[in-house]
């Protein structure tokens, strides 16, 4: 679920007639020079960040009375922030706007009813969640029948319930109706404007804006610049972007990849990291939980599901395997997959061969066609250099297979040179099968689709740290 930056959200609101403070986006050091001619002091500087929640508590917002103060706040950001996509906006500098009251307006989905819910409170601000919990803040809400939409007079009654009347009620109604139009036109999951400022003369100004979009509808909104169509708690790494590309370039099945430990330094310095390839959303989560419970550390979360072709499984496995420092590879789903397991096994085996994997491997191939899948693995086992590699069916419980993995890892520690994966940054990552092919290994069921944007990604400089 792609999150938009605050500045993007404000531009969307502005396009629908909602006032926002005059502001400038700072991307490069040179942008600071243009500020004095564009804005009046005092200003508010807001770091544009991926993190949600209490940004001001983390020091990402400052009110400045002079331009040198602005530079002092913004300058350190130029060096520190990850710039995954070339120049990205670092901060939004806005004129400070004084308001009489801060209110809360948001639209989200009530999952129990299955319809959008408009929420309004006369008491906005950063403490609203706490206030709702303690009962100090009252939220007024209204469901929307999506077949009919909502009319201004429906919103007016919501605003009046919140204690507003006259010009203020009228402006608030117009603003919230604008938020609804944005919500509906963009096919958003949530829009939160907190606070929405109300001046004594009745005018209304959006002082913040958080928008989350629906990834499945992004293709209908090419006008919105989405940097990464997934909901993460930090900017994505190179491998994560590569994974998203591999998923999007091939519409068959789904592939999800998230690095629990994204920095290679700690992967290399610490013991016990597992390259984890899960299958099926629930089965993958269950398997990751069991690894953690057994004292192992999945370096990543990964899931291939929706009956993926071998090519997608192959790419996923290659990406999991290219994490430096991992000491074992574990493939596991819920145990009894409806996916076609011989196809899955083909993708996995080809990746293990192409990658010339030496660390211990345990594959749980239980499910539809498991015997043929295990047979396929055993037939091509000798082309995989790893001294310890096993494939099991549904009859081996998850916990047992993890116990096997631990045993194999212990025995592997005594084989010098095979301890763990070497650093293998995938700069020239082919993502297509190696030219060397063991004689007779079946061709992929499911052709490889091209990955046109991999080249583009490679050109962009990136850093691991953030």
């Amino acid at each position, binding site marked *: 679920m792609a999150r938009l930056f605050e500045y993007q959200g404000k531009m969307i609101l502005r396009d629908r007639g909602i006032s926002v403070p005059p502001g400038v986006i700072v991307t490069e050091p040179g942008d600071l020079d243009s500020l004095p001619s564009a804005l009046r002091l005092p200003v508010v500087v807001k770091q544009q960040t991926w993190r949600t929640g209490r940004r001001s508590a983390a020091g990402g917002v400052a009110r400045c009375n002079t331009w040198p103060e602005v530079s002092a706040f913004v300058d350190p950001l130029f060096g520190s922030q990850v710039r995954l996509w070339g120049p990205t906006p670092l901060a939004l500098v806005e004129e400070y706007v004084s308001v009489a009251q801060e209110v809360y307006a948001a639209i989200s989905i009530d999952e129990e009813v299955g319809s959008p819910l408009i929420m309004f409170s006369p008491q906005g601000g950063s403490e609203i969640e706490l206030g709702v919990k303690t009962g100090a803040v009252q939220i007024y809400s209204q469901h929307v029948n999506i077949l009919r939409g909502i009319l201004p007079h429906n919103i007016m009654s919501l605003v009046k319930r919140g204690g507003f009347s006259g010009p203020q009620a009228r402006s608030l109604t117009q603003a919230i109706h604008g938020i609804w139009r944005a919500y509906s036109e963009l096919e958003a999951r949530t829009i939160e404007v907190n606070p929405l400022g109300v001046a004594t003369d009745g005018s209304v100004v959006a002082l913040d804006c958080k928008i989350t979009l629906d990834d*499945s509808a992004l293709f209908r909104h090419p006008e919105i610049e989405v940097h990464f169509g997934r*909901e993460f708690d930090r900017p994505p790494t190179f491998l994560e972007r590569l994974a998203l590309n591999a998923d999007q370039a091939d519409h068959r099945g789904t592939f999800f990849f998230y690095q629990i430990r994204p920095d290679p330094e700690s992967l290399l310095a610490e013991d016990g990291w597992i390259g984890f390839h899960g299958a099926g959303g629930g*089965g*993958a989560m269950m398997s990751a939980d069991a690894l953690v419970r057994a004292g192992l550390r999945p370096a990543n979360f990964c899931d291939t599901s929706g009956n993926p072709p071998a090519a997608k499984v192959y790419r996923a496995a290659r990406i999991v395997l290219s994490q430096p420092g991992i000491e074992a590879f574990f493939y596991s789903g*819920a145990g*009894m*997959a409806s996916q*076609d397991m011989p196809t899955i096994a083909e993708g996995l085996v080809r990746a293990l061969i192409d990658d010339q994997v030496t660390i211990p491997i345990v594959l749980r191939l239980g499910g539809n066609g498991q015997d043929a899948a295990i047979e396929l693995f055993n037939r091509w086992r000798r082309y995989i250099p790893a001294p310890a590699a096993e494939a099991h069916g549904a009859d081996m*419980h998850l916990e047992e297979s993890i116990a096997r993995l631990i045993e194999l890892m212990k025995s592997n520690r005594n084989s010098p040179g095979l301890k763990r994966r070497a650093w293998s940054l995938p700069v020239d990552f082919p993502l297509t099968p190696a030219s060397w092919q063991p004689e007779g290994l079946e061709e992929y069921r499911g052709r490889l689709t091209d990955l046109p944007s991999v080249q583009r990604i490679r050109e962009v400089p990136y850093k691991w740290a953030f």
Partner: protein
Amino acid sequence: MGILIDSRTRVLIQGITGREGRRSAALMAEYGTRIIAGVTPGKAGESVGGIPVFDSVEEALQKAGHADASVIFAPGVSVREAACEALEAGIQLIVIVPDRVPLHDFLYVMAFAKERGAKLLGPNCIGICTAGEALIGMIGGSAETARSLFAPGTVGIVSRSGGLASSAAHYISKAGLGVTSVVHVGGDSIVGLRMSDILVMFDRDPATKAICLLGEIGSSQEEAAARTIVNGSGKKPVVAFLCGASAQPGVRYSHAAAIVNGGRGSYESKVSNLVAAGVHVVDSLSHLATAVREVLK
């Protein structure tokens, strides 16, 4: 017995000529489901494994007769059209298999279904099987696997994960208990029938003696299920297994629903709500069958 579908349920397949449609049509027909027809616009006159194909739902119902349920295999972006077509034709149960259904499209379908009093299962749903009677969707993968997984018995299974639904059924069947119906409610954050709805149906099904609930982090379905039990609408013994204990807060995992924000939808919240409702929560799928046998004593 079992819930939602049985051997008499007449089923229509929308998107029958695509890759998943063909594969699943064979699975359903071989399992014994009463498939009356398939629909793919522009493909009237073709047949898929002996099942006649029509251009529209209306035409299919005119020529092949009434349908109780329709299952959709169209791409996610076509689900809104396909589901509304089936709803307009008066079909009362729609099973939506595809993932990547745009959220607002599905909200539209939900509102449309509500007006017609119809039920939706999914989206992002592997399907439902009433053991020994009928199967809708792609659960099991092949009729042979489905028959070995879903031995007729007394345990109802409801799951937010397709893989967990099949795996739990496998363990329950292997333990000699067998299942009544196995229902995957779908992996998306917003789904039609929720776990709590299915729980109430199992409660009313005389053949079901115990229920397995397989949940995961994100959404409030498990909490709602616990509320259903506390309110007295779920009186049969429930054994639950939940996954996502090790997930990172603020990251949306591969299921669109799997996210924990500010403690909401967390593993701990779900476990404590279910335990407070008297549900037996196990920490490994391999303990499920033993726990079910225990509560059935």
